[in-house]
């Protein structure tokens, strides 16, 4: 079973990620049983059925924004944000919005082509699970990058008070 980093530990990835429907209507994509992360389009098209399940997560591509899930985020167990390339930093904003504006408390997972050296910033933006697309990544070594910084100037998800409100 593939592994990922979650809450600072290496664990089995028990979720299956469904790709975006290609040439197929999102409404007619068949969503299998079990813990499945569906693309946003499938979620939007099949919401009425899928909302009855507790084992459905949703993934957002980098051009899909948090408000497309909106308040319903609060009821989902997992949302993933995709990195088509590690240079595409939209997911940092999307992650914060899901946590800070839409009340999402489940597993917030980075998927795709992010890199190890982004882990600390992603964690600060509220991402708590990291599924690298590259299976050769040394996850044990990557854990070290989660805490490149232990003190910060700004408010973010992990530290809601900016340093200026905490400075002794």
């Amino acid at each position: 079973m593939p592994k990922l980093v979650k809450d600072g530990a290496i664990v089995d990835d028990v979720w299956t990620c469904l790709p975006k429907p290609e040439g197929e209507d999102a409404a007619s994509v068949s969503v299998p049983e079990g813990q499945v992360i569906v693309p946003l389009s499938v979620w939007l098209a099949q919401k009425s059925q899928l909302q009855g399940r507790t084992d459905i997560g949703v993934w957002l591509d980098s051009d899909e924004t948090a408000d497309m899930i909106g308040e319903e985020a609060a009821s989902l167990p997992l949302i993933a944000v995709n990195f088509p390339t590690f240079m595409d930093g939209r997911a940092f904003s999307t992650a914060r919005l899901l946590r800070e504006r839409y009340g999402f408390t489940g597993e917030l997972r980075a998927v795709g082509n992010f890199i190890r050296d982004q882990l600390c910033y992603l964690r600060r933006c509220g991402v708590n699970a990291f599924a690298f697309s590259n299976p050769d990544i040394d996850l044990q070594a990557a854990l070290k990058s989660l805490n490149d910084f232990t003190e910060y100037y700004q408010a973010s998800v992990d530290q809601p008070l900016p340093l200026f409100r905490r400075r002794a």
Partner: protein
Amino acid sequence: MYIYDEYDHTILRQRVAQFRDQTERFLAGEIKPEEFLPLRLQNGLYIQRLAPMLRINVPYGMINSTQLRRLAHVARHYDKGYCHVSTRQNIQFNWPDLTEVPNILEELAEVQMHGTQSSGNCIRNTTSDQFAGVAEDEIVDPRPYCEIIRQWSTFHPEFAFLPRKFKIAVTGSRQDRAAVQVHDIGLQIVLNDAGEVGFKVYVGGGLGRTPVIGSVIREYLPQEHLLTYLEAILRVYNLYGRRDNKFKARIKILVRALTPEVFTEKVEAEWAQLKGSSSTLTQAEIDRAKSFFTEPPYETIDNAAAQAEVDALASENLAFSKWLQRNVRGHRVPGYAAVTLSLKPTGVAPGDITDRQLEIIADLADEFSFSEARTTHEQNIVLADVKKTQLFALWQTAKAAGFATPNIGTITDIICCPGGDFCSLANAKSIPIAESIQRQFEDMDYVYDLGDIDLNISGCMNACGHHHVGHIGILGVDKKGEEFYQVQLGGSASNDATLGDVLGPSFSAEDMPQVIQKLVDVFVENRTEEELFIDTYRRIGATPFKERVYAKAS
């Protein structure tokens, strides 16, 4: 000047350790070059034409004598004995060895300096007015706000992978010396009717290949909302700025595509959600930031007597008198003056400075200016708090050290990027063009008579030499492997920010001194008394200049 506390030191130490680990992993082949690229850029490290280039931030231009001496040490031990003041008030080393960069950064961190976010697609060093705190026309000192922005933008987790680089400038004076209208965000400090401090917010200005003057998206932002408003702008940009084309990725393109009105609506909508959040500035934090920029222990000086002393010396010494006219300006405190040390003597690349000169400036700062200096975006160095009675002594030392060239603001005080001699982006050399123009205008009396002329040179359309906003702007272009130079006229980076007009077909390098001479001749023949080059150009337009420069030889 801001002084780090244990929090600042901890954060910077962690950054240095992070980059040391990244560099080691890169050298061990564990990080791919394309993945190391943004990591090294966000620590100031470029790979250039001949060697790496390391850019060190000088936050809003403020630097002290300890830091100047450490830069001298770095220049001497890790580089070839000199460095370069950039057009964004930063310091660049042109020849460091990649494997030594973590050591350089560690040495600099000891004196509260670093290269973080001096490059890459992130929020860069905030720039400001080199006369902040001492200018006679200042409304409010911008530096405390610059420092607040520095801390907020440093290692901001959400905005480290923006579509493109992002530059913020702040001015607190009536005359804008920070070119705020050609920055991604420009902040101009203003007071409301009740006398409360706030900001006029410009967004989407910039030079580069698509030069744009920024749009005002808010006339008055109360100071406590500074960070939440910046966060709203950056978030809209991060989410909606173009990422498919590097040349259309700056915020100016987004503002233009949406229209400033729609962009403003998006920012205001986002801000409505962030307003009042924990990032709202407290009066205590504003006061804390201000506490680092209090007045130095100025003496009470009889200004008239001090001025009389200076005048007497000036009347006996013409060279000193010229220097006073061009390189010394007024100060809001009686008996004091602000001095600009010129890094533009003919024959030296504009902005270049040697290790020894850095140490001399450190000594001068210690002796004459409360141990502080400032870098300027015009690539000079300012000693901001000099007693008038010490100007003559300062001038003598500065002259011996080679930076008392009395040319500040004149046609030979050229803003110039490193160009094709150093930069891998450049299409053409810029430094030799600057030198050839300086040689053309060697008669200083003639140069003084011409008055203020901003002449700016960029070696490519990325416009690091700010050619669009020079009264005379020169752009190096490549035509089938040969270097040519396009001339623009009428630009300005000040309150009346304007982009220059292209004069016409480009010229060869050897033609440039004569071309500039002809342009100046047209000005001299047409000007009215009191008119500067830019005024005459605006009055008579481009045609007389074109006719002279492109006249067929008869």
